């Protein structure tokens, strides 16, 4: 009965406006993310992809429909969903190590026995090691580069082995080289643990490179426009970005996003503007 993975059932979200009406940002979203699957959400800005992620995280509640994670309905934020945002959320007053192990001092983890504590410490250490962060263990976040901060954010989100990792443009603020390094790092990490991932991005190449599935969201209100299966398996390296399959699927998705925005240059207006020069 406990179905694993994330099940989103006819979810909608609207916000009340000052004039009493409601602005609908998400409409009738149906999506199933199987365990171990990596689903990438892309779409024009304002299509509600970040809102959908916040709903799954439980930071906001849907106006309609339900979201279940491993059979448990989402009613608020919880440890079974790890979240990484674009902007680092490391607590500036804690060192990297204290940040990564933050959840250990919380009440939810008070009743664990010694072997579980040992396991958690082992896991935290291993994550720090994989992330290449052993040498910055005792540094404060403001002493780290943006890439290092995001590594620590990912490690912190993964420490409690969440059922799903939610990422909201986690590499959006990084420079291109750092982003590529991070891509391979998270690919290896996800492969090792078969992590379930829901990943919001505006970078289609990133989506195709990291995802099993790319979901294109359309705007006004946000809805699922199309879903692309990415046929590259889990062992990927940068070379695939130059293969014809990669390029063609990326172009398909880009064209689809362009089509959903529905914004075309108004040729008439353009002509009128230039006539009066």
């Amino acid at each position, binding site marked *: 009965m406990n179905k694993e993975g994330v099940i989103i059932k006819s979810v909608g979200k609207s916000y009340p406006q000052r004039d009493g009406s409601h602005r609908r940002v998400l409409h009738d979203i149906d999506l199933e993310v199987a365990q171990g699957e990596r689903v990438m959400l892309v779409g024009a800005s304002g299509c509600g992809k970040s809102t959908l992620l916040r709903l799954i*995280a*439980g*930071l906001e509640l849907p106006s309609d429909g339900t979201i279940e994670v491993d059979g448990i309905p989402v009613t*608020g*934020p*919880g*440890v079974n*969903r*790890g*979240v990484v*945002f674009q*902007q680092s*959320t490391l*607590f*500036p*007053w804690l060192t990297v190590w204290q940040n990564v192990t*933050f*959840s250990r*001092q*919380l*009440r*939810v*983890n008070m009743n664990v026995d010694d072997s579980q504590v040992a396991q958690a410490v082992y896991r935290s250490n291993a994550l720090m090691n994989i992330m290449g962060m052993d040498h910055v263990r005792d540094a*404060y*976040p*403001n002493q780290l580069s943006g890439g290092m901060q995001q590594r620590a954010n990912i490690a*912190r*989100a993964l420490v*409690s082995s969440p059922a799903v990792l939610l990422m909201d443009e986690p590499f959006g603020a990084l420079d291109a080289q750092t982003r590529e390094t991070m891509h391979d790092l998270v690919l290896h990490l996800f492969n090792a643990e078969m992590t379930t991932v829901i990943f919001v991005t505006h970078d289609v190449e990133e989506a195709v490179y990291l995802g099993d599935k790319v979901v294109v969201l359309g705007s006004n209100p946000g809805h699922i426009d199309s879903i692309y299966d990415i046929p590259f398996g889990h062992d990927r390296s940068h070379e695939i970005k130059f293969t014809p399959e990669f390029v063609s699927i990326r172009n398909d998705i880009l064209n689809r996003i362009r089509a959903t925005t529905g914004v075309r240059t108004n040729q008439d207006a353009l002509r009128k503007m230039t006539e009066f020069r």
Partner: protein
Amino acid sequence: MSSTIKTVARGRDRTSPPHLAQKMARRVQYLKIRSAIPRKAYLILSLLGFMIPLLAWQWLSSANMVSSLFLPSPYDVWKSFIDWYGSNLVTDIYISTYRVVSGFFMAALIGVPLGIYIGTFKSVEAIFQPINDFVRYMPASAFIPLVMLWIGIGESSKISIIFIGVVFQIVVMVADAVRNIPERYIEAAYTLGAKKGEVINHVIWRGALPDIFNILRVNMGWAWTYLVIAEMVAADRGLGFAILQAQRFMDTPKIFVGIFIIGVLGLIFDLSFRVAHRVLFPWSR
């Protein structure tokens, strides 16, 4: 490419001789916005900030331009200081410090938690913020008759005046500091499994602590400024009382000494707060 760079460099050489260019590069820019200056220069300038008024004062009094009743000479003030030190300056400093620290401490004890809850919960804000803002603008000195009536003329009445002087400021400032904690830290704590109380303890309190510390430092300064008013309430000792007493006997040098000592004590407290801040919160800028 490299040839272009060379041409540009040579062109610049011709307009400004090398020694001049070097001098320009080495010159410290004292009036560049937010630019750092050498530590030594900073100390010298701070000393000048004290020395210039002191010299002007010495010159004004020795030139006999103003009566010594209005402006005693630095030497008279020094003599008065020695006299006072010989009688009961130490006790006066002790009792005044005790009053200021007690009033300030009580204000912090009530103002900080209240400010934290006002900044965290809208309902608490609705109850306390408007009335706090209302009382905040009432002058502490106006409360003297009421304090005497309600609390009497003992030690607690002086402490109460200082308490009234700063507690309402601490409340508003702490509430603002708490509101400045970015929402994303609170959300992150929730996603890591924190409950409401844990968010308050581990994120709001910890995150606002350096700001709260600075707020307390500023309010400690204000607490000292309320000392003279506080010691108007039937005091028989203390720096503020001594100043009021000296006024009655036209002992201008002693007034000067009293004011200076309050200034020095305030400066010592301020510096201690700054040093403690640096030691306690290495992560905060």
